[in-house]
């Protein structure tokens, strides 16, 4: 099987596309800076006593999820991806949820509780 004809953009298309990508570059830099600030914030908040270890873990995990979301949404281009990728990720999400649900059930042990 061969590739379809190469769709090398002509000059004006390349120029337009390059301009489009260059606009995104500022966004990438902004996200990078946000991630670095959030890392500093995660470290700082870990030394703040929120009343219990569980509360500190919850705060750190909320921040980590926010950071991971930024990486996935912006750097991994999930903000504008094709449907097939989202389908793959929905299934992944279901399996991950099941995995951690099982972990929770094993710890909580609903039969003896």
């Amino acid at each position, binding site marked *: 099987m061969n590739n379809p004809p190469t769709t090398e953009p002509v000059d004006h298309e390349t120029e337009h596309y390059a301009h489009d990508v260059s606009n995104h570059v500022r966004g990438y830099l902004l996200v990078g800076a946000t991630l670095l600030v959030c890392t500093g914030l995660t470290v700082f908040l870990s030394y703040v006593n929120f009343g219990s270890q569980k509360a500190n873990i919850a705060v750190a995990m909320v921040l980590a999820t926010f*950071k*991971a979301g930024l990486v996935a949404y912006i*750097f991994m281009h999930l903000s504008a991806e*094709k449907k097939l990728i989202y389908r793959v990720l929905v299934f992944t999400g279901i399996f991950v949820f099941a995995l951690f649900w099982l972990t929770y059930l094993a710890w909580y042990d609903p039969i003896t509780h």
Partner: protein
Amino acid sequence: MEIPYTVTARPDTGLWNAKVGIWLFLASEVMLFGGLFSAYIFLRLDAEPGYWPHGLLNVPVGTFNTAVLIFSSVTVVLAWASLKMRRYSRYRVYMAITILCGVIFLVVKLGYEWPQKYDHFGAYLKTSSLEKYERYLGNKHLLAEGLPPRVEITGHLHNEAALDDPKIKEYEVGLDVVYTDPTDPKMDRPHFFFVPPTEHVATIEKADVERATMFLPTHNNYFATYFTITGLHGLHVLGGVIVFTYLFFFGGITYRQNPEHLANRVEVAGLFWHFVDLVWIFVFPLFYLL
């Protein structure tokens, strides 16, 4: 044989093939790391009070490595964007920085952090012996503060022969600072900056010890999960560095044939790299901070 749909989209999926492939691979990676994080959660929730250690890792070094990885995520996406803008020399600069960041991360991890742990000693005391070592543990103070007890004494082992020689009946440990003044409220929470073991040497009789080893994966569940997860993560970083190095040195051939093909290759490798960064975003607080 030419591999199909490396540049243009396949009509039925709307995607070039490698992109579908990398996302399916990343889905399997989510389950791989998910299983290990699940083990971490399970072991931590089941740990008896005092048996899940805190403050044993170097937070500034971990923060530095996190920043390095985040920075490299930015440079790899900029390398891809440079190719999209057909600026090959700029792509090479960003790719070189990304490789350098990956190498720095690995050197810090394998050349500094891990060896520091191999050189550190910990002795879990028998429950019946905790009272005897109260002057080092400060458990009455911790109890009054509503904090979990200390059940282990850590530091630098002066007589390493004691680990293997049954004739030696005690461990001589240069104490970590927390055990020199255990009732000081400043010691209730881990220090931000790394403090090396002190010159204050405590003698711990082997008869009072439940188990004692250097900080290896066998030391406790914390280090077992720490070395497993950071080790696997480190292998991923190494894999990324190898692929980026290939693209750095040999990308020019692909670029001359079809720049978009190289951009797609960099995008796929970049997706993997971002995933590695994403995993570290959770590893860092779970092991270093909480």
